[in-house]
């Protein structure tokens, strides 16, 4: 271990037309910084000399890195037209030097730097193609799920009931506390903002209308869907993705089972059942939050709040909100599962697909919400 610290040296002695190089000390990886400089330092002298001799007697230690640098010196000499001669090679290093002589002989042609404009164009083209790809993948998953559903309806026994209940427990029951908490806070914040601004023109009583309609029609379901996409959609992608990586999904198919039916259908169905329930709970929590703010910040008695709410909202508002929930769940489920199946071998790909899954499902949920708004407006709901 002491020898490791002995400083390496490279002395170059001109001998007539020739050059004698004497590496001294330990030519090992720990000294690489010095070694690189040393071996670069003699480049000009090697090119100048007629013969090159490498005297290895002074070496105290040598490893692959040092041996490679020495071999590089000898190759530089060979390139200048006179192969270097190794003398005084210790027996235990002979094998290593011989080994280094074999390597790095064949250099693959370096990849040509492509035209940057073409690269950009290529990227644009590729992303356009992948966008249509996304649509195909989405439709394919929708179709496969539908087929699996028909299969299950034909043979109800093939429904994975245990798996369905377990998924329902995970994405539904376990999500209730956080969903209720966040929607409660959102309801409270909307009410507070309403009272603060409506007070200026004495329209405080309309805060109840705003909170009621906004929460039931839009916010309740939208906030819950976004939370579910982040909470359960990402979990689906990661689960299916790591199953894909460990070939578990291939194993299922070879046993004659359809992965769509076994893994994906229960997950998507659980999501479709859970999201309306969660939206309902979320909406109630938001209204409760609004009511509390009305009582303590807006000085509105609970009885008045409830009476106003009765007048302001109707079952239609509730229906508009809750009808959207299963469709949003379907979109989240399909995106999450198909992204999971697109995971390739690496850990990085798992992370990328999970991110894509969440981003894409939140985007699609909002687009879907917009489409529903147009639809409900045109049928007058």
């Amino acid at each position, binding site marked *: 271990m002491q020898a490791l610290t002995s400083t390496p040296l490279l002395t170059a002695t001109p001998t007539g037309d020739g050059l004698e190089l004497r590496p001294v000390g330990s030519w090992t990886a720990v000294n690489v*910084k010095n070694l*690189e400089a040393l071996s670069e330092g003699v480049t000009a002298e090697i090119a100048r000399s007629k013969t090159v001799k490498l005297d290895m007697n002074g070496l105290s230690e040598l*490893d692959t890195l040092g041996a490679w*640098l020495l071999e590089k010196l000898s190759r530089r000499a060979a390139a200048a037209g006179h192969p270097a001669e190794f003398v005084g090679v210790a027996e235990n290093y002979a094998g290593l030097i011989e080994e280094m002589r074999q390597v790095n002989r064949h250099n693959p042609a370096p990849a040509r730097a492509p035209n940057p404009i073409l690269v950009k164009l290529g990227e644009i083209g590729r992303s356009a193609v992948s966008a249509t790809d996304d649509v195909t993948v989405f439709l394919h998953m929708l179709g496969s799920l539908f087929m699996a559903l028909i299969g299950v309806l034909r043979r109800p026994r093939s429904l994975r009931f245990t798996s369905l209940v377990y998924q329902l427990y995970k994405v539904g029951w376990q999500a209730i506390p956080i969903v209720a908490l966040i929607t409660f806070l959102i309801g409270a914040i909307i009410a507070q903002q309403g009272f603060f601004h409506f007070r200026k023109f004495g329209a405080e009583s309309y805060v109840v209308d705003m909170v009621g309609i906004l929460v039931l029609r839009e916010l309740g379901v939208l906030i819950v869907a976004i939370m579910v996409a982040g909470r359960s959609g990402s979990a689906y992608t990661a689960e299916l993705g790591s199953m894909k990586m460990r070939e578990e999904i291939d194993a299922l198919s070879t046993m004659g089972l359809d992965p769509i039916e076994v893994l994906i259908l229960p997950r998507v169905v659980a999501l479709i059942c859970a999201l309306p329930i969660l939206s309902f709970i979320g909406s109630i929590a938001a209204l409760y939050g609004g009511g509390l703010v009305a009582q303590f910040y807006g000085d509105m008695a609970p009885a008045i709040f409830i009476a106003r709410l009765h007048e302001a909202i109707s079952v239609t508002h509730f229906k508009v909100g809750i009808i959207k929930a299963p469709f949003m769940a379907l979109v989240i489920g399909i995106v999450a599962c198909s992204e999971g199946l697109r995971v390739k071998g690496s850990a990085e790909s798992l992370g990328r697909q999970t991110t894509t899954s969440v981003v894409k499902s939140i985007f699609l949920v909002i687009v879907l919400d917009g489409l529903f708004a147009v639809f409900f407006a045109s049928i007058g709901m």
Partner: protein
Amino acid sequence: MKPEEPEFAIRVSDLVVGFGRQVVIDHLSLDVVKGEILGLVGASGGGKSVLMRTIIGLIPGRSGEIEVMGQPIGGARERNTQTAAGRWGILFQQGALFSSLTVRQNVQFPLRENLELSQALMDEIATAKLEMVGLAAEDGDKFPAELSGGMTKRVALARALALDPAIVFLDEPTSGLDPIAAGEFDALIKTLQKTLGLTVFMVTHDLASLNTVCDRVAALADGKIVAIGPMRELLQSEHPWVRAYFHGKRSQMLHPQIN
């Protein structure tokens, strides 16, 4: 002149390792001589990998001492990773290549983290290591997911050797390889051990590699080393488990000549 004391690369004395109430390694002592290839055999789930992981500091031992190249291995937490990195290279059973890096980047990783060297030299060293383990320079641009089992093992070995460690730990290096590839891998380990002067600590079940490359073989049973020595000594061993291992039906069938 008194006989020269052999230098030890690894010294394990009175080591106990356990999980919960289960004791896996029970007062085990083992010395590995510098420059030898030691094969470790033992029943599946018998603690071979646990012993290896304890020596490299991944699992803390309950009692006992471990010295690697004269330096004690403490608990994994207080270990100085800077010195540990250059001391040994480890070939994990599944390769444990970083899946988001290319083969070349995988081999360069220990170099990049531990040394200051130019990118050009790093590329040359990585290619040199890849060629030493029998891969082509072109394979350097592949990702681990694109490699076959045998190539994965070779890349993992190249990465283990990146810093020219004194000791290499191999966890079942030939498992999952066909006999030809396994034979090549054995020959490769032997060659590298000769050229680089490595000490090799190898966990294996491959009777052929035990027979051809290992200088000594240690048998681990009931948490202890029950027999250690060159292969022919182990074949003479009277310990019932060792007898069953080397003279069982499978080994009789495959290697009638060694019995």
